[in-house]
């Protein structure tokens, strides 16, 4: 098993700034926008973007949340491993809001399909967009595409993309892991 670096810390940082700017371009002052990190891994990317938007781009009153999709997944009783739930924190109303889902890797699209169902428990958003750091194209099982993407990657199915964050794994880096 080997691995190669897809993005190093500097590249991740540049991409985060670009994604933050793209969000500002579209959402202006974010009054009607809710940024939602998809649990478990999307919350790290969401938190980094939120910090950037607040500190570097002086956006105030950001509405944010974390959504867990475990109970909405379509592979309950179908996967070998039991599904582990994570915390959902939705302290804001999504009714009639522009929601942006934030996740680290878009692969089959099934997580996002589940998130689209899960978010309905909190109201009816006006629109929903998807932001992802890594877009593994050619691997989709469902017709789901990101609105904002950090980097597009051509990884085959046996390969894995691993996103590490400094606050969790001690470094900002994206690896392609192959067997």
């Amino acid at each position, binding site marked *: 098993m080997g691995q190669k670096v897809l993005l190093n810390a500097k590249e991740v940082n540049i991409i985060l700034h670009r994604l933050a700017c793209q969000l500002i371009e579209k959402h202006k002052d974010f009054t009607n926008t809710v940024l939602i990190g998809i649990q478990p891994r999307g919350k790290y990317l969401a938190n980094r973007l939120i910090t950037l938007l607040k500190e570097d781009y002086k956006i105030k009153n950001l509405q944010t949340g974390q959504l867990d999709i475990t*109970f*909405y997944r379509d592979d309950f*009783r179908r996967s070998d491993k*039991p*599904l582990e739930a*994570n*915390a959902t924190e*939705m302290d804001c109303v999504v009714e009639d809001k522009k929601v942006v889902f934030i996740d680290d890797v878009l692969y089959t699209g099934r997580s996002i399909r589940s998130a689209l169902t899960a978010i309905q428990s909190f*109201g009816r958003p006006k629109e929903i967009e998807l932001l992802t750091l890594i877009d593994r194209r050619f691997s989709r099982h469902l017709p789901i595409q990101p609105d904002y993407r950090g980097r597009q990657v051509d990884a085959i199915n046996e390969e894995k993309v691993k996103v590490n964050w400094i606050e969790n794994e001690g470094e900002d880096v994206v690896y392609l892991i192959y067997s």
Partner: protein
Amino acid sequence: MSELSVNHLLGIKYLNKKDIELIFKTADHFKEVINRPIKKVPSLRDITIANLFFENSTRTKLSFELAEKRLSADVINFSAAQSSVKKGETLIDTVNNILSMKVDMVVMRHPNPGAGVFLSKHVSASIINAGDGAHEHPTQALLDSYSIREKLGEVKGKNVVIVGDILHSRVALSNIFALQLQGANVMVCGPKTLIPKYIDKLGVKVETNLRKALNWCDVANMLRVQNERMDVSYFPTTREYAQQFGVDKTLLDSLDKEITIMHPGPINRGVEITSDVADSKQAIILDQVQNGVAIRMAVIYLLASKIKQ
């Protein structure tokens, strides 16, 4: 992630500490779910659950049914009073008939101790014991411990006294197992006639003086006197029982510290606790009911995840 060590929930006796931790952790997530604007998740869309109640129940039955519906399971209800059991059908026949309608899980309350264990050996579905005679009532014990954990932070090291009719109580036995598994100290308190003879063999303290018991404890779980299970008279009068083993506000206020009052319901107001105690801030009786739905969702979800397609 870990999964439950069992395929059925027949009693706390069959669980280990990790199982209880997993159930509580899962219940935390479901508690958040049931406080959402839309309180339903689609996880169990393809699971059918039969609620078989061979004995009366209001709270437990409603709580299970709500938990099942919140998980999107299909639910069928059966109560013995309106069934062919009256016509002489055996338990296994009744259940096998229901299972042939493609039922995946059975929630059963039965007057005979061990009915759940017996059934689990003869049928293929996953069984949840919702009370079997005076034996066990595992989901009640789980929600009681969960409520203590929620109120006091943790169960470990806490002193819990179970007061009342221990002899006829399945709640008492399941609670003793669950609390001890989590490292709590357990005492039972009641008239000598309502305390089983060898209960101290389970490692619980026995006390017949209510004031002493309350002064020792952090939590008092008040049980109902189960008149319907009493074939002979175990104490002279209800009035005398209430005087010796009933908790009123004066007694509660005279204690050295503030204790938490629990009750599995239904309450006989004025017997085991007075109305002002039941409605006081120290009582977490209605929290127990709310937690009951989350706990049952967790148990059903975790057992259902072990039913392979």
